[in-house]
């Protein structure tokens, strides 16, 4: 019974931790936009957590610059299991316009398993919410496997 309860709760209370790996702030602003009254992602139980230790979903924005790579990876490793990694915007997926630069390490999936990619530059709030909901489903699956 408790296992089921916990699995159900996991899907209903995903907390986000947001890492900016050299983003232009476009995606960051859009992420904040989904918290505003118009979209209000909190009604689905989402909440921005201040520390990776408390997060379930890690949202990475930006093209993963060489300076930030180690830091991104260490912060992701500090998130307790089960966790779900979401890349947001085109940058962490392909490098976007920065691709080929000596200082950019994108895509992030080279270094760590990414569960959900939200494409767009920057993605629409609706897309972000859709991606996050998908992430919660993956989270629930991971919870169930344990």
């Amino acid at each position, binding site marked *: 019974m408790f296992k089921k309860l916990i699995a159900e709760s996991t899907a209903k209370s995903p907390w986000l931790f947001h*890492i900016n790996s050299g983003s232009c702030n476009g995606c960051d602003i859009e992420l904040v936009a989904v918290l505003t009254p118009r979209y209000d992602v909190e009604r689905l139980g989402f909440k921005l957590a201040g*520390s*990776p*230790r408390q997060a379930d979903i890690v949202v990475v924005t930006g093209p993963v610059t060489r300076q*930030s790579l*180690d*830091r*991104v*990876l*260490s*912060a992701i*490793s*500090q998130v*307790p299991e089960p966790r779900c990694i979401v890349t947001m915007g085109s940058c962490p997926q392909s490098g976007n316009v920065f691709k080929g630069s000596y200082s950019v390490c994108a895509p992030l999936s080279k270094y760590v398993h990414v569960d959900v990619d939200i494409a767009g530059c920057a993605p629409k709030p609706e897309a972000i919410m859709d991606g996050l909901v998908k992430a919660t489903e993956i989270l629930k699956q991971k919870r169930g496997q344990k």
Partner: protein
Amino acid sequence: MNLANMTDYHHFPIYSVMVLFLGAFIIAACGSKPSKDPKNPAGFRAWIALCATALSLFFLGSLVKPVMLEGEIISYWMGSRAIAGGYAIGIAMEVDALSLFFALLIATAVFVSAIYSIRYMVHDECVPQYYVLYCMLAGGVLGLVLSGDIFNMFIMVEILTFAAVALTSFRTKVYGALEAAFKYLVVGCMGSTAILTGVIMLYAQYHTLNLAQLANLIPGTMNNATKLAFAFLYIGFSTKAFIVPFHPLAADAHGAAPASISVLISGVLTKSGIYGIIRLTYFLFQTMNLGSMQFMLVFIGSISMFVCVTMALAQHDFKRLLAYHSISQIGYVLAAVGLSTSLGISAGLYHAMNHTLFKGLLFLAAGAVLHETGTTDLGKLGGLSKKMPHTTVLFLIGAFSISGVPPFNGFASKWMIYQATYQKAVESNNIGFLLVTVIALVTSTLTLASFVKVSQSVFFGQMPKEYENVKEVPFGMRLAMGILACLCIVTGLFPKTVTGVLTEPAARAVANVGEYITAMGFKSNLPAPNVTFAQVGVWEPINWLLILCIALLALTIVAVAGKYDRVSERTEDDTVDTKYQLFYGGEKNVYSQVGGGDLFWGFKHNWRHYFDFMHNLHSGIVNDYALWAVVALALAIVYMMIVL
């Protein structure tokens, strides 16, 4: 003299003092050749000191039954020279419940500190001399509280000041030790001079030095010279109690002395000053029924508690911080005693006892940290709880006790003080006493804050690299701390028993001056007062603890069933996994310890003008401190002349 005569308990007070002086003499006579044992450089001399203190404690402990429980007052004339022609000629010891109460506190602290010293004083030179001075100090304080003769009180004050100054500067290499000793000597000497002047002026008036006879003669015959003597004596004992404005000396002396001596300075020396003030105001001059005298003591007590706790918040050194707290707690004692209600006196004495226990514990913990790491600077330490788990637990017990966290002993006594002040405010319909309650309550929280600062910056937080090899302190030191910690918990859990056996008889003795006079063989017509210790509040620590244990048990069952302790931890060989590193906003391998003096910035920012002012005021120049003493003396004289 046969054995039965010698084991008569009437001789025990003098035995308990003499055994310490004798110990000092034997240790000094044994020379100063250090022993070969590196763990105990003083060799058998340490054991002599320990035996002397243990015997002293034993003698005093066996007096509990007759004096505390049966209410006898032991009067003891040296060489059987009693009263002639209505005047006390011989030297007397008079042990009533008040004296015995303080003597027990002192003997306990001295004994525990002696256990601690054996392992603690291993890095020093001249350790045999340390034990000589140690026994002298202990004997001096015991002699002071057991004496029935005011000139002997002065002699003992000199002995203890002398020993304390020498022990303060014992570690001459320690930063500021000599300076602290010199300041203490100058102001302490002014205090002793004040006491001597007061004593001799009383003698000029009444031609006796016996406390009981003075108490019989002085009230009702006060003139200007007596008032002057009172002011001198009061200031003299104030310097021994280190109350405001003599608190900077305490801070300097505690910080520089070895921890085992800091225990004595804070737990024992300050008590001797408080004892002197009680004897002076309640017995000799019997002025405590005057509102103005109550006002003076309560006012100085409140000022002491608040000023010193704020000074403590600004400190960067572990022992200096403890030293200021010491005076802050003495402020509580003085304020409670100054209320002149039986509950107030009982509460004040209870707090005095608890202060000896928890402050001793805290100083010993500070000494343990110093012993292992070589520093007490709050800015340099951190994370020692992993290396010194027992010391951490013992320190926390002391810290909770002093900050008045239930169910430890500090709370039990502070709780009585709050009630006593509030009761006094209601009874006398004076809103000023209510302010004292508020100050006491707020001071208690500030105390907690500064101990949170210590635990964060010394025992918790991150550990600097250089302390990787720190070990737990030796068993002997932990034993000493353990004894005090157990006493802290026991006296906190059974407040009714403790007050019933120890503080209430003492408070009764304070109220019943007539008996003190008649026990010495003088005629007194002071009536025996009716003393009650009614409390308005309710606090049942045992029941609370029982409920808490049930609650904890229930939670533990749930936690075990839910596998609460199944955690992910770093394995021994795995040093690189970033998962177990602290989160630094993504930065790698950063050492950062939040500690030191500015932890409570939010508080200090609002009070910055006050803190700046205080910092400049405590200039560290001995002339300034001497000036404070002179001004205090002048104010005391003027005040006494006006109100008495």
